[in-house]
């Protein structure tokens, strides 16, 4: 019971510090807005995602179409609103994959040391020797285009950084007396990792994850832009930009708005992530 109380007050502390950071709160507000847009896209978007209207092709922004229409007469704003769904989904799911896999591997490496540590960390070194964009391109090529494949391609490159962070934190935690005490009363390794190690390495994982979502969204958009991620007609922002490329000379709005959408999302995630890092950093605690 006592432990539960302490845990609460620690997170309340973090939230209290975070609340004072105006930029982080702005980021959070934008994020909430984006999530709402994604959830209620069907009600918010003025037109359907694939609603083609050949009599209104390539129209400049107007009251009827605030961001103009594309070469199929589809409303760009509606597609961007639906695209929020795809981008947030890719960002969060791929991050979840890499956070879970990376954390488990990192915790095992740090907790068990020895041969499992060597194998896991050398594997991480190898993956990190390939620039993430290039690795994602190679994986996406193998898996082929598609939403799930893009998520996996983006996720794999991020696993090593999670593994490293969690391993480092585990190493500092595992020799603490309370872990020793747990072992003394006969707790299993799984129990110790889940119950005692994991809660203590949660903070670095959360920071890494918030900033990682931004990177994942950017990376997924680049893959789609290169034509090996999510393919049209799915309204993914990167693939919208890719399709709009050939219209850059005459229809500026086609290449402008999807990019702005990516930028706003990534900016919000970065602001919030930076704020969260500062709020969780005990060095800044007064």
């Amino acid at each position, binding site marked *: 019971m006592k432990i539960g109380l302490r845990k609460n007050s620690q997170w309340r502390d973090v939230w209290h510090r975070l609340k004072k950071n105006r930029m982080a709160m702005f980021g959070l507000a934008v994020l909430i807005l984006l999530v709402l847009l994604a959830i209620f896209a069907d009600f918010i978007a003025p037109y359907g995602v694939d609603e083609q209207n050949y009599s209104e092709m390539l129209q400049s922004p107007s009251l009827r179409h605030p961001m103009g229409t594309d070469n199929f007469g589809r409303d760009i704003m509606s597609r961007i609103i639906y695209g929020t769904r795809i981008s947030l989904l890719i960002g969060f799911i791929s991050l979840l994959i890499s956070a879970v896999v990376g954390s488990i591997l990192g915790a095992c490496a740090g907790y068990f040391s020895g041969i499992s540590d060597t194998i896991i960390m*050398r*594997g991480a*070194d*190898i*993956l*990190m*020797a*390939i*620039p*993430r*964009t*290039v690795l994602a*391109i*190679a*994986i996406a*090529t*193998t898996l*082929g285009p598609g939403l799930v494949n893009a998520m996996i391609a983006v996720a794999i490159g991020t696993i*090593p*950084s999670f593994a490293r962070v969690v391993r480092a934190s585990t190493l500092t935690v595992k020799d603490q007396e309370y872990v020793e005490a747990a072992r003394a009363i006969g707790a299993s390794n799984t129990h110790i990792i889940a119950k005692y190690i994991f809660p203590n390495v949660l903070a670095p994982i959360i920071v*890494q994850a918030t*900033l*990682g979502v*931004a*990177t994942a969204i*950017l*990376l997924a*958009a*680049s893959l789609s*832009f*290169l*034509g*090996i991620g999510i393919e049209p007609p799915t309204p993914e922002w*990167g693939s919208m*930009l890719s399709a709009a*490329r050939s219209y*850059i*000379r005459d229809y*500026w709005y086609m*290449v*402008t708005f*999807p*990019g702005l959408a*990516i*930028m706003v999302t*990534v*900016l919000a995630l*970065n*602001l919030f992530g930076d704020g969260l890092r500062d709020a969780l950093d005990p060095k800044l605690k007064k």
Partner: protein
Amino acid sequence: MLRYIIRRILVTIPVLIGVTLIIFTLMYFTKGDPARMILGDMATEEEVEELREEMGLNDPFLVRYGNYMLDLFHGDLGDSYVTGLPVTEEIMARLPVTMRLAVYSCALSVIIGIPVGILSAVKQYSILDNVATLLALLGITIPSFWLAMMLILVFSVNLGWLPASGLYGWQYYILPVISISAVSIATITRMTRSSMLEVIRQDYIRTARAKGQTEAKIITKHALKNALIPVITVIGIQFASGMSGAVVNEQIFAIPGIGKMMVDAIKARNYPVVQGGVLIIALLFSILNLIIDLLYAFVDPRIKTQYARKKEKHKPQELAAGGEEVSA
């Protein structure tokens, strides 16, 4: 120190072999039949099968990987399925272009990032600091390929000042270099600023001020030396990020570098070229990380003494975070 260098080099070799295994495995499982790609749709199934046999595509995985590694140790990366030329030749023809892009971008990032970061820290909370911080934040959030398109839109399409594609002279480098370096400029600015802020609050700086040293000298002589140490790592990572950035930007600006070669090869299922491209990038990336680690140990006497003290007992900590190339 020598022992550290040798050990560090020896560690790199198995990593690179691991990279070849990963890339080879990925390409092995990629859909599409190279023999069919080469012969085209008109070829009969027998002809395709014959070529498959001849190219060793029917061999088991380990045999193929073994052959690939044997060739690799002889400096042979295989032949391009499309042009028939050796992959090494194809890479060597394009590598200078990509390297030039990465070097120019890195230079631009350092020239802008470090001074702006220093000024930003020294004049904390001034208008300059706020503007620089905001721009740096935009820099790390803007997708590089979108920035490239916006630059083309403004400077090529609307103003007509700079060429949008190809590579026929110095002016063709301007837009790609700006687009690739935007993230690096922002990252280096942020890193320099935060590192500088940390240093100028330390006691020895206060001491320098107390003895009446001029502010300019304090910054250049005392603070900078320590503040730039973490920045070195970031510069290295940014150089690598420049190379990855080149992959996407070469595609947009139609620049004949490694990146465009790889993306074109992916679309054509030209695996030897993809493998070779990834391998060469990973190799450069590893060499770069090695140089940074060594440089880091060289400029920071603390690491050197720490290493001398621990020598055999502990492996030196991973000096450079290394490997994170996308802004985070």
